[in-house]
């Protein structure tokens, strides 16, 4: 969907309140918002709940805000970011920011960790035809062409601070422009670039460390 079509959708949904236009916007943004949550919480159930809540808000208040194709994504992401902050705040007493399935206990051995990521990848593969086999997921290593077949990148990714995760997700996974990212995170472009730079440098450092320890 290009920006012209998106603009049309926005205007028509506001005018007619026809749900089919909302559904177009919904199907465009739901996977993105779901990923935004899931790559920070690493919990499928929670991510589903939170993204549902975000789109309920979008549906309710869509007619009351002035948006175009350039800003609608930023608005939805901003709601999601606020939702995530609310979630962290409400669950801060339990001091839990990733799923209880995943126990980041280094003594428990790699097996549990690998198992978690195997399930994570399998559960979240949108296209059933693309689901990787267990061997593919476990067998690969950092040098493999498909780095994703190895879980080490996600494992390194988990340790990044939330803001670095968000910048990497928005910039590379969703391939957004800096203007939109700045709007979502309420930061200047220079700040976003600096965060991205630091995040990548840190990721490489951690991946190298893990490789060396193997």
């Amino acid at each position, binding site marked *: 969907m290009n920006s012209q079509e998106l603009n049309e959708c926005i205007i028509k949904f506001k005018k007619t309140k026809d749900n089919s236009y909302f559904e177009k916007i919904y199907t465009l943004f739901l996977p993105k918002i779901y990923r935004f949550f899931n790559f920070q919480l690493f919990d499928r159930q929670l991510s589903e709940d939170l993204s549902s809540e975000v789109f309920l808000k979008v549906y309710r208040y869509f007619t009351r805000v002035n948006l175009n194709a350039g800003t609608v994504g930023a608005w939805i992401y901003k709601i999601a970011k606020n939702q995530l902050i609310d979630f962290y705040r409400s669950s801060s007493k339990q001091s839990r920011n990733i799923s209880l399935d995943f126990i980041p206990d280094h003594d428990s051995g790699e097996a549990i960790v690998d198992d978690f990521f195997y399930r994570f990848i399998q559960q979240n593969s949108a296209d059933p035809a693309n689901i990787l086999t267990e061997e593919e997921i476990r067998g690969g290593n950092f040098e493999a062409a498909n780095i994703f077949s190895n879980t080490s990148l996600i494992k390194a990714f988990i340790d990044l601070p939330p803001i670095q995760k968000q910048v990497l997700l928005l910039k590379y996974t969703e391939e957004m422009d800096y203007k939109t990212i700045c709007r979502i995170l*309420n930061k200047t472009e220079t700040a976003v670039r600096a965060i991205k730079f630091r995040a990548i440098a840190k990721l490489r450092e951690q991946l190298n460390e893990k490789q060396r320890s193997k």
Partner: protein
Amino acid sequence: MKNKEANKKKIDEKILKELLYLMERGKDSTILLKKYPGSEDVISDYKKIFNGIRQFSSLGPAQDFTFRSLRDIYALARTGAGMDNGRGVIAAARFRPAFIKPLIVFVSVLVFFVFSFAGTIYASGSSVPGDVLYGVKRAGENMRIAVTPYEKKGGLYKEYLDERLDEAEVILNNSKNVLPEETAVLIKDIDYTYGKCIEHGCLNKDNSEDLMSRLSRVRNRYRQEYIQNNTQAGTGNSMNENCSRAGTQDHESTDSPNPADDNSGSASNKSNNSSGTGESNQHNGNKNSYGSETGQKMQNE
């Protein structure tokens, strides 16, 4: 060894910086290989990370969730459950530039400090020595003097002399809470301010008669207090000193337009006694003692 590692890390970061720069402009990264020989591994590492994060997009929600969630949204929207005014959601659609927030914080902190400082100085206006805010008051005055041009300083000093005399009258009339040292400092300040007034030539006979009379009244009152306190303590030495001080008092009261008579009241007995001994000491000329200096200044004028 450590140095080498740090150096390598620096070069790696340089490569990353340039790689990001090239990628954003859609240029080929082969230039980097020429610029940094032996950097193939580093560049391929970075590229793998970029590609890996890009491939995160292959993970998405399950199909059934997409439909289930949509159904739930319609149902909840119809019932209006959990509905609020949506202020936060609507506010999220206003995109302010990122520098606005720090700017607002900075300005409000600045305003807070300026106003609280000004407010403290204002509140300290009626403080006397021994009060918590007295230091603030004096600091404020010093600042005002520092920023006033020379020709206007005289008026300011006169104003402050008036202020000091007010304070002295207050603390000499009810001196329970004030330490004698503080009173001494205040009297010294009075002398200093008086000297400054004379230096700037802002005291003449027309405008300063009232000030002069107050000045001498305060001095006398101070001397009485001082003597009273010391005679109560009852040591010979301090008596001697007091006498000499009292002597200067007499010497001075001949110059100043207003002698001690009108406010001495209850303390007159002791005052008379000491001034009797004082006369004999007067010619010894205790130049260091308080009052003689200002007395001379007055004479000069």
